């Protein structure tokens, strides 16, 4: 993809629905027409207007690429004071009216913001917190059960737990990390490959895990191993997850 196409894609992703960008451009035009103060014009009109061509310039994109990856180019758009420009123009507009007209104008502007934007708390990934750690309860319970004071233990966890475990308890190590789940590495991992096979081979998994010093294996109850795992015994079940413990690797300090 050439530079300009990448820039356009970054803009498209940044704008999202695009309504707020339209609102911003209207606010910019409003400030350009009605604002007479030289300093305010510089910050609410000229500066944002200058930032846009700078951002679109492929040469600037190339220079940026020397320092960072193209995917973070959207951060340049943070330099455009979108919220101050819209808020300033709206407050200027509202204050230019009096009495009922002002109330109507506030109502209209509020509706415009609500319609153009999207409430953060309705986002799919925004969910009620289970606890003070803002982690799923099962992660906290399982980590607490496996934690050993004064040493690290290695635990094979299912994909849904990968991103949480080490945030909560850095003394727990994981044989393969989130980079595999996200495709951030091209290397393969034998344990991950073995866990992904259908049907899974408990003997192979057991041998691989003991070879890599994995103390515990955690799987959802629905994926419990039908045949017994070599070198591992079923240890306990917590919040719908079965934990297998290695019979030979000790977890003493």
């Amino acid at each position, binding site marked *: 993809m050439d530079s300009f196409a990448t820039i356009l894609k970054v803009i498209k992703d940044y704008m999202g629905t695009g309504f707020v960008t339209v609102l911003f451009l209207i606010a910019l035009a409003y400030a350009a027409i009605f604002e007479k103060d030289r300093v305010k014009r510089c910050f609410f009109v000229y500066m944002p207007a200058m930032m846009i061509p700078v951002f679109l310039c492929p040469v600037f994109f190339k220079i940026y690429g020397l320092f960072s990856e193209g995917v973070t180019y959207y951060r340049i758009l943070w330099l455009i004071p979108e919220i101050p420009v819209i808020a300033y123009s709206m407050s200027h507009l509202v204050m230019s009216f009096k009495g009922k007209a002002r109330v109507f104008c506030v109502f209209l502007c509020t509706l415009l913001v609500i319609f153009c934007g999207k409430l953060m708390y309705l986002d799919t990934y925004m969910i009620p917190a289970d606890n003070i750690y803002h982690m799923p309860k099962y992660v906290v319970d399982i980590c607490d059960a496996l934690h050993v004071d004064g040493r690290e233990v290695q635990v094979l966890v299912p994909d849904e737990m990968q991103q949480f475990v080490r945030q909560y308890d850095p003394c727990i190590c994981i044989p393969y*990390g989130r980079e595999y789940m996200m495709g951030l590495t091209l290397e393969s991992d034998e344990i991950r490959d073995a866990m992904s096979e259908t049907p899974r081979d408990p003997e192979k998994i057991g041998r691989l895990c003991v070879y890599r010093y994995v103390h515990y294996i955690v799987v959802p109850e629905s994926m419990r191993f039908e045949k017994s795992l070599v070198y591992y015994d079923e240890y306990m079940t917590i919040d719908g997850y079965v934990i297998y413990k290695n019979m030979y690797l000790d977890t003493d300090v």
Partner: protein
Amino acid sequence: MMSACITILFEILMPLLIGAFFGLPSNKTACESKTAGGEKSSGLLLTLARAYAFGQILLFAIFEPIAVFGVLKDQEMPFIIKTFLAASAVITIFFWILIISKKLPDMKGLVKSGFDKPSVFGILAFLIFLFMIVMSFIMTYTDGDDAFYITVAADAASSDSLYAKNPYTGFATTLLFRYIFAPFPLWISFLSKVSGMNVSALAHTFFPWSMILLSFAVMYIIADMVTDGDRKKRGAFMFFASLLVMFGDYSIYSASNFLLARSRQGKAALATFVIPFLFMILYSSFKEMEEMGKISFKNLLFICASGFSAALCSTMGGALVISFTGLSALMMAFTYKKIKYPFFAVLSSVPSIAFAVLYMVMR
């Protein structure tokens, strides 16, 4: 409970103490200008907002070189904590000596004057702000990047090692050059170490509200400056700004999204606190050029501090600060037909690029 109180103390008191010099309304002090930074208005809320925002920028700026030096010199977390606390203490004492030697402003009068009587808009903005604070405690946003950033902080707090482990697995790794020049996770680790609170609890529950507070403090200062202290206009500005933040989920890259969803990451601090702060300082510098034909030492100092703070938040942060300052300086030179002070402004933003250059050389 105890650790929660200590966290709140560190998150609020430290910036207020070190930033008091820049918050207190004192036209007598050497580096305060008459009009810069909303000096005309002297409400208690504005004083607190200024002290808090200026103080936090200073703390970030002090932390950045110490943390990078610590990582490169293979030091451990206690080194960073001790050095940072000592440096902050010295600077805080220095500013308080300045405050006292230049005679304390009428503190009684300031406290007595209390908060400006809020307008209806101001009350609405405050309610939205409170709602966002409450939601930051009871709602959570699952973001995969936390698996890296928060775990780096957790590793540093638990084993004192700095970027020595692969955060995804916990195994030893070579130095992660892409990240070590923007050690924002170590700031979270620092707060966790001094308060004794679990890193995860701190980052997800006790950090977001302080970022929202910081972001609104800067927004309030900007509102006061651009509305020339007009109470009603300022309230309306804050109302629409807070509404725009709350309804900012139109894109995952918007600054509002970062503030409410990923406030514990350095990128969020950059987008919602450091860049708006720089905007405020540059606006203030323009005002100074307009009214006095020069930029005060204070503003040049804080352009520099913003650069260091931005570098703490993101490897590209320093470059963003230079770009923004450069553009403003260009505009300033054209507007006022003067080169000297715009040049000084750019010059004061240059040191922050050192970290990005180091990254380019060492990667």
